[in-house]
């Protein structure tokens, strides 16, 4: 009897500890979100969005350059990563049994695990060193390299969700494999692939390390691709490690904006995915 009681006790204790683990992980999350709200929202005003950084000591100024810079960097990255990623996903889904498809899948998995700082070094040696200039293009390339494996794998997964009957039907009607893939299978999976791209953007939007020595950051407003460009995460970083109170305030606002962007993208992707799932089940 006592032995059984002890077993039940251990079991209850274990259950409790597992619940405690969840609470323990949620504490920092709530803590972080709380501080972002508390310190971030207060510093968000119109000038934060429309002004550029002011010289040290002057009051005011904002993140306009960084917001535009981040949009340009994400755009450049997507322009390069989406075609490559979607095509890689298309190949691995269409020719899933082949050795080359396995090699692509494997490379994408490895690429996904490469530390972002290493991607930064790579982009530096490919896109900065030869021209001896930091540039938005190099930053976009670095982010694109991080984006490709995510887009490739989600594309493949979503293409696999398309029922085989659709493809078989197209083939049976005399379509070539290319025709079946491009005009039947791919459109069926398109909404899903678009959400995959949203997820990928949400993942790279906050990346700092790959931009440190590619896009480099810029105190001034710039939209040129061949010049150093500001980015939200870099500016948050430089402001956070600066000794100025005013800059700290703006760093919090920048971080809040960053998390909001990522949150909105993730929730958009999530609701879209759920709708897709329901559609497929119907």
């Amino acid at each position: 009897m006592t032995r059984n009681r002890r077993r039940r006790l251990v079991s209850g204790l274990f259950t409790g500890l597992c619940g405690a683990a969840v609470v323990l992980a949620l504490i920092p999350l709530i803590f972080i979100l709380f501080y972002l709200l508390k310190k971030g929202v207060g510093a968000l005003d119109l000038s934060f969005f429309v002004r550029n950084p002011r010289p040290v000591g002057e009051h005011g100024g904002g993140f306009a350059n960084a917001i535009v810079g981040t949009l340009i960097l994400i755009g450049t990255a997507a322009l390069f990563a989406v075609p490559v990623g979607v095509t890689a996903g298309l190949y691995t889904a269409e020719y899933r049994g082949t050795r080359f498809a396995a090699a692509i899948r494997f490379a994408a998995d490895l690429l996904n695990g490469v530390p972002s700082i290493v991607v930064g070094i790579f982009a530096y040696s490919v896109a900065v060193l030869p021209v001896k200039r930091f540039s938005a293009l190099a930053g976009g390339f670095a982010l694109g390299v991080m984006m490709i494996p995510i887009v490739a794998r989600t594309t493949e997964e979503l293409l696999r969700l398309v029922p085989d009957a659709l493809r078989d039907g197209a083939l049976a009607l005399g379509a070539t494999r290319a025709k079946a893939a491009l005009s039947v299978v791919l459109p069926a999976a398109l909404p899903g692939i678009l959400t995959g791209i949203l997820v990928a953007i949400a993942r790279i939007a906050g990346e700092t390390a790959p931009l440190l020595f590619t896009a480099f950051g810029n105190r001034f407003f710039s939209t040129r691709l061949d010049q150093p460009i500001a980015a939200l995460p870099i500016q948050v970083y430089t402001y956070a490690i600066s000794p100025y109170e005013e800059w700290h305030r703006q760093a919090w606002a920048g971080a809040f904006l960053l998390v909001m962007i990522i949150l909105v993208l993730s929730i958009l992707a999530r609701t879209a995915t759920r709708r897709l799932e329901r559609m497929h089940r119907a």
Partner: protein
Amino acid sequence: MNENGLSRTGRRRPRRVADDAFFRTATGLVGGIVILITLAIAFELVRNSGLSIAKFGLRFWTGRVWDPVSGEFGALPFLWGTLYSSFLALAIAGPIAIGIAVYLSELAPGVLRRPLVFLTELLAAIPSIVYGLWGVFVLIPLVRGLEKGMPDALRKFPLFSGPPLGVGMLSAALILAVMVIPFSSAVAREVLHAVPSSQREAAYALGATRFEAIRAALFHGRTGIVGALLLGLGRALGETMAVTMVIGNNPQITPSLFAPQHTMAAVIANEFTEAADDLYLHALVEIGLVLFAVTLVINFLSRLLIWTMERSARTVPAPPAPVPLPSAEPA
């Protein structure tokens, strides 16, 4: 599927075959860029670290002096800092991640499951720089307070020696742990999901308590669980921004949790744009090369373990081998 009978006999066969071949080659070529990039990363890292590898050889990884001015580069302190912070983080995050995975996949009531999964995923979505910002302004003062409150008797231990700065190994390990938890727990959850329910049912049938049944499931998935932890380790090793903002960036080798230290990723982030001469740059790239190689091996191992586990779980027949229907037998 390429060789279906219809296309063989059709008159349009040559065009169809040509079309398909073109489609396959074109998509294959573009898809191959993924492989190309992975190889190019390795190539560029080796190419741009040649000077340092040639000059220092293995001495680079045993040397303790990092002095760019006199051209002396020893990376042991960075290696130490990366390994120490990552393993500390894993020691904290591992049990919590497994606990979360168990709770979410075995214990949580249905209504709670979805929102809790969403919240843990949110933890993974917060960018490193935001963790760093929070670390600088919230966590470090907290840790400093904790360090100040440490009883003097404990200070004699090397683990707790040094002034209470807040900035240092402890803060880095804590923040890394928080960042690793969502990754490890997500994979561990998948692994538990792959364990056939027959394992738990069998345990319950034998009169096991909840804990004993879950222990059986965890044991069944142990390879995958180790894989999940390794994945977390891979993340921790390469993490840059949050760590560099809280660890203090001081290259020294000490077991002290309170001491400011440095990591491989952090030194690259801090000094890369300052590297004035080629040798300095190559030394930093060599650190990146090793970081790349180590994370590659660890990620590969972790995938292998998870894959092995899920595969073996799939081959365990859930019900005993199905009895074949007589009609299914060929006459």
